[in-house]
């Protein structure tokens, strides 16, 4: 039985991970710590666990691992503290908002000899696993191009405060697809071009959409749309889609397109009820197993760093109007 704690419920994904921990018989959500005590107390109550207000006490409470789901810029301090206390760490994406912070996170975990994982749940989505399997089978031959999206609704709150989030939709919604493509193809990104801005909100104060063009090793051409373009009346939170063009055909995936159309007069909007497998569960299960077995998780800190490098290059490109090497 792995004992897991959650550091901060600032990111809404903490709720999903907490629910997974409660669902998994091999894991126990032992404690919650949050620098916002009210939020932490409420979350602890909701998920039937205890709230510990002092971070040092929290880290000394016999945990095997922690999940860090704070505001993006606080990842580094929390991961460093957890690593120093010898805890395995699953850190929400993006791993960090700067390359320096991401490298520091990796270095801290290496020094403490603890496992570090970046929360890329898409790697545990069955439709996306199927895509990777199809690519690996070689049946589609050489990969030529990929056209991707990760659209979502604007999460608001701290996400829209650059000093806490490090950036807008380009920061929030580039890393999943960057990681998926690295994972599926085994290639690294070589350059990025990005146009972004505040396009579909009135006064957000930061980018809510980025249109990226990239290349991966071997000349694989990639375009990606990272956005918070989904309006409040849209039937779902968003999407992850990839259309991969290869020598022997095309593979198109809309990862969350396992849904019911639901019409409900109380909501006064159509809603999509997802019935596909929950990718979070696979992510958390793998992290729990890595804590239990004291081994490195399958999704690593380096994976998190590589995705951060793409995102940072995208912002550099958007600012300079030029292609930026990764």
């Amino acid at each position, binding site marked *: 039985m792995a004992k897991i704690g959650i550091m901060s419920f600032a990111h809404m994904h903490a709720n999903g991970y907490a629910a997974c921990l409660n669902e998994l018989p091999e894991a126990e959500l032992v404690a919650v710590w949050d620098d916002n005590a009210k939020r932490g107390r409420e979350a602890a109550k909701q998920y039937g666990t205890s709230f510990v207000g002092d971070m040092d006490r929290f880290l000394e409470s016999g945990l095997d691992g922690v999940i860090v789901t704070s505001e993006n810029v606080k990842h580094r301090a929390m991961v460093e503290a957890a690593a120093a206390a010898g805890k395995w760490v699953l850190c929400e994406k993006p791993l960090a908002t700067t390359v320096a912070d991401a490298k520091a996170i990796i270095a801290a975990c290496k020094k403490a000899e603890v496992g570090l994982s970046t929360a890329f749940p898409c790697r545990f989505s069955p439709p996306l696993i199927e895509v990777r399997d199809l690519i690996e089978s070689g049946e589609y031959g050489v990969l*030529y*191009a990929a*056209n991707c999206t990760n659209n979502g609704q604007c999460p608001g709150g701290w996400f829209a405060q650059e000093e806490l989030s490090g950036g807008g939709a380009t920061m929030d919604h580039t890393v999943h697809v960057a990681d998926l493509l690295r994972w599926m193809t085994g290639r690294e990104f070589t350059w990025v*071009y990005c*146009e*972004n*801005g*505040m*396009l*579909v*909100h*009135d006064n957000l104060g930061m980018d*809510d*959409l980025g*249109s990226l*063009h990239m*290349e991966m090793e071997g000349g694989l*051409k*990639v*375009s990606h*749309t990272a*956005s918070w*373009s*989904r*309006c409040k*009346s*849209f039937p779902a939170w968003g999407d992850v889609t990839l*259309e991969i*063009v290869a*020598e022997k*055909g*095309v593979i198109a995936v809309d990862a969350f397109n396992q849904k019911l159309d639901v019409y409900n007069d109380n909501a006064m909007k159509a809603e999509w009820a997802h019935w596909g497998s929950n990718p979070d569960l696979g992510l958390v299960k793998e992290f729990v197993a890595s804590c239990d077995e004291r081994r490195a998780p399958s999704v690593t800190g380096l994976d998190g760093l590589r995705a951060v490098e793409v995102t940072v290059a995208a912002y550099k490109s958007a600012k300079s*109007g*030029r*292609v930026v090497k990764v």
Partner: protein
Amino acid sequence: MNVAIIGCNGMGRMHAQMAVNCGFNVVACADLELSTARSVASGFDADATDDCFGVLTRPDVDVVGIMTPTPTHTEYVVAAAKAGKHIFCEKPFGRTVQQCKEAIAAAKKARVKLFVGHVVRYFQEFEAMRAQVAQGKVGKVGFVRLYRGGIFPAGQSGWFRDLEQSGGVTLDSMIHDFDWLRYVFGDADRVFCQALQRTVPNHVDYSMATFRMKNGIIAKVIGTWAHPSGFRVEAEICGDQGIIQFNSDDTPLKAMKRTAPGAGASMIVPSSPVHTSPYQLEWEDFKVWLDGKLRARVTPEDALEAVRMATAALKSAETGKPVKL
């Protein structure tokens, strides 16, 4: 009014029918392959010829429809204009911006009317999207995504395969979307584009372009000639108050024919029938202009700007850098 159709292989037959539907007489069909000209002419009780320039000077011809491969458009437009004929030219208007300019100058000099078939402006679903935007249904537009394509087109003697001639999917197909973007959202400031343009081992093209419009809107346009089958159009328009989405796969009609007893459907043919074909609407619009009434929805200058957007996208794909328009 009498029409001569030049280029009978691809769109020729369909345009001849649309012209007839609008009250034109098709009197001559020309193609470098006489048998091809004959196959269309016979359906309209018209003369067939392989003299594509000769037919332009026939005194009984008032309007010339140019449906030939893209790089030949300009010489036919110039010759038709010199002969004093009005012109319906298929898109792309020309292979280069310079060619488009020459064609416009020739038509101006001869005082003939020159119409370029940017048919997407006449598609009911695109007109409906334009109306929804105009009615403010999505608020202030910030992002547009357009997607178009399917299989690599065959084309007369494979001229589509010669990317120098056809410009690939970026010029030949995405030009529809480039024109519609300008039509609805104004001029573009710059473009970044990646295009496959592969000929070995298969002919596949796949092009991904991002335009920054002068008003700040970002438009992503994807064109594919890389799919093993089918054809699909998608559109998405995002504003500060809503989203419009269109997907041509979502059709009102799907016909499935059983070819043998006990066998399943061998092919599913989806269709989205409308009362009047968009191709007929563009001929009707051209006719209104010819009758001396309103100017047509598409001007030759619009068609030139669409070619400018496409050639800028191709230049970006070639150089790996953003290109200013």
